[in-house]
């Protein structure tokens, strides 16, 4: 259901201000969403004054600097720091993206960092993605084939392989799904852009023999047709992919076959 306002326990309150101690002249105010399960209460926005003169270029570098030098209690996910693993997906100044590939210089003024939208918060910037992973599992993201000969390659022509371009690059960071208003209101039923892009990736694979079944499975008023082409997904994808187009392709396939 559409719920514009946040539940009572989720209303954000003002938090602490961590004043700069380095005496740097090049300061940036970084507002970060904080919530600690061991303390409870309402989430708050802590403000850190960060010395930008001695900080590397990406938003993740800013967070690392805060964690290493100012406040070690800050929690966030990160791993590869090169836009490959998708761990550090978060909301930066109103737009989802990967903290490790987003240059902080692109954000003028204060830096506002929130967890991915409309998720149960585990701690600070870490959201709970259990539902999304379950939905991902439901589209059976693996090759289904009757070919049993393990000694032979399962060939694909160049053209067939090209169809997977723009689909296989997805790193499942969940930036797109958590940017989608339809997914916010109907996330328990609607599969969301990330999972539908993956569903399409297997529908389009020439080696897969389960295309019809796969199509039948997603052809559902709630699972697929909750997409209203708001384009938040494509707009937020840090890998430059186009989930909105993938969803439209599934719709078109269902309408024409």
């Amino acid at each position, binding site marked *: 259901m559409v719920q514009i306002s946040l539940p009572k326990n989720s209303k954000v309150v003002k938090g602490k201000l961590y004043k700069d101690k380095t005496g740097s002249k090049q300061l940036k105010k970084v507002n970060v969403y904080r919530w600690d399960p061991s303390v409870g209460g309402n989430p708050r926005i802590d403000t850190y004054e960060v010395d930008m003169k001695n900080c590397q270029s990406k938003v993740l570098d800013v967070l690392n600097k805060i964690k290493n030098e100012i406040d070690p209690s800050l929690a966030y996910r990160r791993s590869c720091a090169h836009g490959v693993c998708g761990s550090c997906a978060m909301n930066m100044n109103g*737009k989802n993206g990967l903290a490790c590939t987003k240059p902080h210089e692109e954000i003028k003024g204060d830096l506002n960092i929130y967890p991915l939208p409309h998720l*149960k918060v585990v701690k600070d910037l870490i959201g709970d993605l259990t539902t999304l992973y379950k939905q991902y599992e439901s589209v059976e993201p693996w090759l289904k084939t009757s070919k049993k000969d393990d000694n032979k390659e399962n060939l694909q022509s160049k053209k067939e392989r090209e169809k997977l371009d723009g689909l296989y690059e997805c790193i499942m960071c969940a930036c797109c799904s958590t940017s989608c208003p339809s997914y916010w209101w109907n996330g328990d039923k609607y599969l969301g852009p990330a999972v539908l892009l993956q569903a399409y990736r297997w529908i389009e694979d020439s080696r897969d023999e389960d295309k019809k079944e796969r199509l039948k499975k997603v052809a559902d008023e709630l699972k697929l047709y909750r997409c209203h082409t708001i384009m938040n997904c494509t707009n937020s994808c840090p890998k430059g992919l186009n989930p909105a187009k993938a969803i439209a392709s599934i719709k078109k396939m269902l309408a024409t076959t």
Partner: protein
Amino acid sequence: MKNKENPLSPHIQIYSWHISSLVSIVHRITGVINIITLTLICLWISTILLGTENYEIIRNFLISFFGKFLIIGITWSFSFQILSEIRHLFWDFGYGFDLKISKLTGALVILGSFILTLIIYFLGTGLFE
């Protein structure tokens, strides 16, 4: 997650708007306005059955300043809906998903809705005759 106390992260409160999301929500709002308007127009026409006086009362209201303002607003609502629907039609054919193109078509829908309203207004006042 079992713990019900975990807060929900902010969503529409913090998410930034862009042309496509704006056009999408306005498309929905104008859709609701249009359906209400069409119902009211049907009701207005039905009042003719009850005699000319009823019809006249509403007509007098509609040619007043506020009435005209209302009609122009509704014309805009229909203009927007039509143009946005054409944009959706292209999407259904699989065209226009490129980020730059969808931004451009979104801007065209917004701009076009005002131009179309003006054209219909001037057609109504007989400026083109």
